[in-house]
């Protein structure tokens, strides 16, 4: 019998938040569209902070436009800013898609974004001509900053794009829609790798892998920093209503899947975030549910390599070790489950998102754990720090924002998720799928070896 304790934040003041506001998620989602550009309808900080955040994590350019709202807009509304912003963006960049991302300001001002977009479309048609204008999709994405968090912003954006761009279904395309969530390029590539091994074509909603990890190849002439290689083509977005199913890896937000199911009868399944053996197994089964994709021998070999590593490593080095895990809720439940598969205890899990389903899932995961599990939701990093001061764990698993906490508590930090700005390459190495499981297992184990075995160095002789 395992024991769980569930806590929410007790104070109102938030200290070192684990979430940010909706627009970030929306910008992330739009960045995954080929020749897609986010246009933030708000103050400059709303785009600049996010560009800064993306750049320091991915070490890539992050090109996001802004309508630069100022005092006059606060008084008279952001109409002119949005319309001329759309016009300027269209004429200077000729994008395939513009995602208009609202913010606290534009939501409070009460701008009629849909209406303004209509006007802007008209103006663009007049200046660029009908053909060119038609090629530019403009999607309104409502992401009021004071409602929920970035995770919902992502969800809202994917939903808005699917809702406003997908066409009426015609012929089935035998593809699967995948909503990957706010994950790293390495993770999306791993998902594509798995599908590829299963012979299953897919439409990523959306695909940030190449845009956020793009080669430096000036010789390949089409390249522009604001239009990196890759991303989901708008045609695929239009076509996603013809897919045979939607799988949302984003465990606690899959409105787009709902839209596709209700509007276009595309069946869908949600979660789990495929970290570790069982969750990846489930992902494979989910894929099979919607298609006649095959689980090939090669894929099972990859699984076998993870199994082999776990057999060889975990009971010897990791058994009984405790972990604190923090970050986005799907990553937290996913990693917590994996950590249980490794024979460790997810002693403390913490997410900034306030979501009962997360709590339920964590309770389920906790049943696999051999010890006490504390579930913190709607919490912040400070709460976690205080709990760890009282009851430390052997390792912490989370992103770079916890680094000073880990440093002060002298608990090693295994970096995962977003943002990781104090190490390099983390955006490229997957943690999902079987191969991602091996990576994460190696990372955890090597951290444990360095911290707990190096001091008694002879234990590493063999």
């Amino acid at each position: 019998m395992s024991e769980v304790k569930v806590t929410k934040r007790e104070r109102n003041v938030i200290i070192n938040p684990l979430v940010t506001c909706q627009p970030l998620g929306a910008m992330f989602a739009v960045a995954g569209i080929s020749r897609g550009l986010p246009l933030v309808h708000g103050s400059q900080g709303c785009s600049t902070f996010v560009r800064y955040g993306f750049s320091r994590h991915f070490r890539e350019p992050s090109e996001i436009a802004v309508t630069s709202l100022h005092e006059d807009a606060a008084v008279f509304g952001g109409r002119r800013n949005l319309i001329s912003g759309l016009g300027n963006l269209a004429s200077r960049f000729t994008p395939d898609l513009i995602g208009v991302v609202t913010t606290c300001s534009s939501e409070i001002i009460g701008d009629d974004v849909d209406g303004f977009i209509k006007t802007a479309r008209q103006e663009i048609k007049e200046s660029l001509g009908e053909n060119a204008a038609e090629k530019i999709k403009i999607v309104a994405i409502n992401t009021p900053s004071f409602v929920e968090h970035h995770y919902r912003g992502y969800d809202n954006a994917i939903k808005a794009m699917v809702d406003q761009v997908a066409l009426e279904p015609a012929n089935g395309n035998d593809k699967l829609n995948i909503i990957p969530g706010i994950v790293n390029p390495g993770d999306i590539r791993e998902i594509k790798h798995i599908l590829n091994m299963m012979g299953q074509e897919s439409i990523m909603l959306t695909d940030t892998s190449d845009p956020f990890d793009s080669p430096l190849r000036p010789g390949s002439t089409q390249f522009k920093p604001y239009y990196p290689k890759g991303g989901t083509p708008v045609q695929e977005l239009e076509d996603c209503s013809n897919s045979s199913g939607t799988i949302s890896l984003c465990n606690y937000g899959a409105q787009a899947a709902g839209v596709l199911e209700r509007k276009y009868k595309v069946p869908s399944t949600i979660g789990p975030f495929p970290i570790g053996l069982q969750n990846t197994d489930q992902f494979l089964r989910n894929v099979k549910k919607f298609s006649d994709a095959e689980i090939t021998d090669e894929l099972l070999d990859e699984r076998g390599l993870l199994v082999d590593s776990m057999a060889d490593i975990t009971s010897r080095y990791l058994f009984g070790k405790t972990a604190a895990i923090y970050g986005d809720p799907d990553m937290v439940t996913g990693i917590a489950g994996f950590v249980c598969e490794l024979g460790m205890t997810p002693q403390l899990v913490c997410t900034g998102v306030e979501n009962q389903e997360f709590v339920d899932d964590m309770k389920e995961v906790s049943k696999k754990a051999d010890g006490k599990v504390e579930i913190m939701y709607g919490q912040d990093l400070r709460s976690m720090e205080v709990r760890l001061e009282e009851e430390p764990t052997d390792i912490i698993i989370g992103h770079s924002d916890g680094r000073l906490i880990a440093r002060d508590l002298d608990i090693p930090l295994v970096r995962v998720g977003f943002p990781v700005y104090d190490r390099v390459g983390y955006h490229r190495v997957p943690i999902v799928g079987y191969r991602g499981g091996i990576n994460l297992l190696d990372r955890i184990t090597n951290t444990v070896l360095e911290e707990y075995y190096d001091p008694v160095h002879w234990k590493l002789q063999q």
Partner: protein
Amino acid sequence: MPHDLFEVDKSIPERKKHIYIKDNADPDQEIPSCNTKTIPGCMTERGCAFAGVKGVITGAVKDAAHVVHSPVGCTAYGYGTKRYPTTPDMPDGGKFPLENFNLKYIMGTDLKESDVVFGGMKKLRQSILEAAKEFPEANAIYAYATCTTGLIGDDMDGVVKELSEELGKDVVAFNAPGFSGPTQSKGHHVGNHTLFQHLVGTKEPPETTPYDVNLIGEYNIDGDLWILKPYFEEMGINILSTFTGDCCHDEICWMHRAKLSLVRCQRSATYIADLIEKKYGVPYMKVDFFGPTYCAENLRAIGKHFGLEDKAEAVIKDRMDKIKPDLELYKEKLQGKKVWVFSGGPKNWHLPRPLEECLGMEVVAVSTMFEHEDGYEKIKERVKEDTVIVDDPNSLEMEEIVEKYQPDIMLSGVKEKYLAHKLQLPCVLIHSYENGPYIGFEGFINLAKDIYASIYNPVWDLVEFKEEVEKTPKLIEEVESGDNIKLKAK
């Protein structure tokens, strides 16, 4: 024609007046249009006023708790964005008990939809009280307005006034919502005025000397202050207050007691020097410590002010002797390399001459995010003929600058760095530095070294795959010298 309309700006011709090519013959003594609103739909590098106040001015204070009155986003973005390290040392000889307090924590009121409807005052009040409880060590609490609270019209001043009394410690509100002013510069302004109005003159320093100065606009970026401080100490000058690098809350409160204010970052902090002069009669001097020449000149001027000329010369000589070999090395390596400086503001006029005179580089472009007219005048004065000066360049313009002016290196920020790299243009971070500090004599060598490392990064010769290479001959020219063999570089 000193103004230029870029190719990429054909559809936004109003950008022309922001782009100026230095022209000595220009009869109208023009400068780029500046400090105006960015054209909507651009990818501007500018930030917001909240960033200006918290991210630049107040975030460096080591013993204040920061509470952002906002939905969660602004609070999250206010975390861990700037490098202003602190020591735990306090002016009374004690230690502040929370290490890295200013870097480690940020707080916020976490506003939700209902607060937008019904107002956020209650949450502000509660949050500040909770903050005080969570960190009783904090000597002050700084609260920040943001777009949301600006728009819903929360009266922050009222709340903080009450709470100051209730808590028995200073609680200060900064009213610079993100949308106010065209750039983060508005936030600097608000920060200066707020700190002056509410704090300066409210406390007395533990002791004073005839050589007390305020070092204003020095934020200890990557340890800048720790380079400058020994210069002053060796000269016998006492930094009574730093505004705001590695400073504590009380230092701001007793700035009126200095004998002289030195203004380092003149864009973000001349305001307060000016206010202090006007109200308390403390004179101020604008100083420039970037590059050995300016650094020497300004130390001399300060020395002269206090009658400490000999001591200033001693500091200058000591440091010049130290850096000379490195300076020569890097000058040889960087001779003729073209540089583009893109800073927030002042570094655009701090750096061109040092780069040119001390390192032999050629400044081909300068651009700023938020400089005002006075700054642009200095920039114009200090750059050479034909240098392009761009106010608030956007992404497309940046690419055009690279194409047109072919710089060998760019000095700018993180957002621009990776874009530059994609254009095969090396880039060194000039806001928070790479392997800084960059100020003073020694710091200038750090800058030169980072520039050198970036330009000479071997990868730039290896960017493209070559179908053929000349086979490296296996025989190497060797010059025996004792045990060692010298190899001639090809």
